[in-house]
């Protein structure tokens, strides 16, 4: 079932798309312009944040999905160590890569939002900011480790252990930063307050849905690229040897052809 959902069909060697990714992609083609319209045109200004509130329709969903992505990496890492299956390793890798991208977007959009709202680009005393930054750096290290040449099994095992340790470390970092300054500029979730206007709430949900679809779409594509890359790595030597042998055969035929021509002359 897993393979059916993620893997590429034999006949589709030149693409990583399938019916499900085309469907998700189409949702994004329609959804992203809709989100832009709702965020910038239809939804109202906030009383205190004014236009800066529009950034939150992206900032909050990418933050949520970066945490989900790292969670999936941790789950993938645990399952890899348990089952030793390439499927879980490739999932963990794909999810970490998207998580790092979303995490970078979270930090950048948060920083831009913070300037007009908190009057600062960065606040060292804020628990969530510093924890997210440390998490971002930890997973950059995870991706760097994955780039190191090694056999697929060794690389997967090392990465799985680093992925798990990184995730275990997040609550410790969070707690240490919380004690460090014991403050946060982040407001309490406005969702649970019930203070949001209908259109604001709708736009926020739309943003979460769109980012969720984007995560899934990217995950499936990245998984397939990762799967093909490992496949190529495994078969790479065999393919390269065959290619060189074919070249040599072609060269030999060519040379013997010349000789025969020479003999005739």
């Amino acid at each position, binding site marked *: 079932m897993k393979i059916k959902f993620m893997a590429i069909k034999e006949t589709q060697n030149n693409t990583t798309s399938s019916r499900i990714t085309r469907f998700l992609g189409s949702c994004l083609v329609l959804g992203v312009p809709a989100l832009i319209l709702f965020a910038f045109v239809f939804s109202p200004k906030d009383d205190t944040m004014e236009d800066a509130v529009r950034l939150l329709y992206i900032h909050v969903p990418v933050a949520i999905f970066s945490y989900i992505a790292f969670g999936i990496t941790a789950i993938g890492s645990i399952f890899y160590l348990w089952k030793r299956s390439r499927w879980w390793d490739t999932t963990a890798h794909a999810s970490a890569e998207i998580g790092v991208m979303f995490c970078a977007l979270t930090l950048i959009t948060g920083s831009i939002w913070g300037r007009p709202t908190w009057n600062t680009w960065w606040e060292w005393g804020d628990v969530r900011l510093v924890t997210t930054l*440390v998490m971002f750096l*930890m997973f*950059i290290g995870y991706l760097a*480790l994955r780039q190191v040449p090694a056999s697929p099994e060794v690389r997967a095992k*090392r990465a799985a252990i680093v992925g798990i340790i990184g995730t*275990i470390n997040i609550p*410790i970092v969070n707690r240490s930063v919380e004690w460090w300054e014991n403050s946060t500029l982040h407001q309490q979730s406005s969702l649970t307050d019930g203070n949001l206007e209908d259109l604001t709430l709708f736009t926020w949900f739309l943003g979460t849905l769109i980012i969720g679809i984007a995560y899934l779409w990217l995950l499936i594509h990245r998984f397939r690229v990762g799967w093909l890359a490992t496949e190529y790595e495994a078969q790479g030597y065999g393919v390269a040897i065959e290619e060189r042998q074919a070249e040599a055969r072609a060269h030999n035929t060519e040379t013997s052809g010349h000789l025969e021509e020479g003999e005739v002359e």
Partner: protein
Amino acid sequence: MEFRDAWSIARKDLRIELRSRVLTNQIAPFTLLIVVLFGFALDADTQTLRDTGPGLFWVAVLLIALLAIQRAVQIEDADAARERTLLTPVSPSSVFLGKSIALFIQLVALEVLLFFVMLALFNLSVGNPLLICLSALVATIGVATSGTLYGVITAGVGVRETLLPILLLPVLAPIAIGATRAFGDAFDRVDADGWAWLGLLAVFAVVYTVLGMFAYGQLVEDT
């Protein structure tokens, strides 16, 4: 007897260090150099140096720890020493403990040197010596165990020198924060509860000791 095995491994590493003298001839002078650089960077202002002293101390410790960890991995590169250790009837968790103990002892020696140099050059006064000693020891256990674990992850990798810092330093963020706060309290520089921070450092040390004992065997097979 697990601990006896671990101690044998630790003695082996320490003996190599004593004979090669890399710690005393290279890493210790580097420690002094860092203190001098901090002085230059902060404009020879003793008040600033006193205020930032606890943080500078732990930044310096993390930098020298990177060198010491690289060194601890490097001494086992030659003659396939890591693989040969696996062939002995010593369990991987004992090897992990042994290497962590050796690293811990080396780091503590360097910290003592760094501490007295900073005390003199930065004109620091100690308010709570017990808190200083305990927090330094517990934080160093955390650095040594996590360092040994990440050291073996990067063992046998061509880009070890550059990979180790980006993997390890973010993980050590709680140590950088916790130990700095505990030292800040002990030096009477900040209003913080140093003993609470000691608790956090202890949690970090326990988590990494347990993780390392479980994961080391898995990792060392592949180096």
